[in-house]
């Protein structure tokens, strides 16, 4: 969907499991973008698919830019997304 690649979904999950911060995971995704463009919608899609977000939990990514020019800096995006990833993880684990 929207051009996501399964191996990059796997990468997002594996980096999260390894304890990498969301901002680090976002930069890892961008490193795989051959054009160098920052397509935030694609980043949102990767996080949504990787963590099974269904209520816009990844939307803060729209406010982030890798060069720090976004309204949300690395610390802010890390705090927002870490909470949301943890919440989803609890739901998934509870349901399992």
């Amino acid at each position, binding site marked *: *969907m*929207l*051009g996501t690649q399964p191996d990059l979904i796997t990468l997002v999950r594996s980096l999260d499991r390894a304890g990498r911060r969301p901002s680090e995971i976002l930069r890892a995704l961008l490193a795989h973008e051959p054009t160098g*463009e*920052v*397509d*935030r*919608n694609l980043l*949102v899609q990767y996080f949504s698919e990787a963590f099974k977000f*269904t*209520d*816009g939990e990844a*939307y*803060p990514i*729209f*406010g982030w830019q890798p060069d720090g020019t*976004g*309204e*949300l800096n690395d610390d*802010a995006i890390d705090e*927002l997304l870490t909470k949301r990833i943890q919440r989803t993880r609890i739901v998934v684990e509870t349901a399992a």
Partner: protein
Amino acid sequence: MTPSNPPPTRSECDPEFPALPTAKLYFVRNKKRPFTNFIRAEVTPVGYFLYHVENTPSDGLGCPGSWLVNNAWAHFVQSGVSINGIRGSWTYGTNLKTINDLTRNNAMTIAEAATRTWAFNQASGKGFTSVDVLDSHGTPGNYTSVDVVFLP
């Protein structure tokens, strides 16, 4: 499949679907400004319309935000999707700024301030005029996230 014709005065508005819209997800971007003029809209599992829209630079030539929202809305309605509310999930941007400006010194509650946002204007035009505050973080005037739903 292409989006509906853009407003004629918007000479820099050239909308396209990067992926075919579905009953759950709709994405349109301006080919001329693909990373700064677009909408992503979806319907959540509980039937809430949720979107993020951007239109920069603000030169009056790109695809208007309200036009993008209305097209996304029309897509879901025409797809037969039942929409129970319109979500606002704000962690930055103009809607959160409005909330913080208006709640400073407890001048308004979040629910009151939410009725002054750009998002409320969009929602009220579709008949969703009441506000339910789902979650918030921060203090009046300094919220870092606000989640609301506009209901009929």
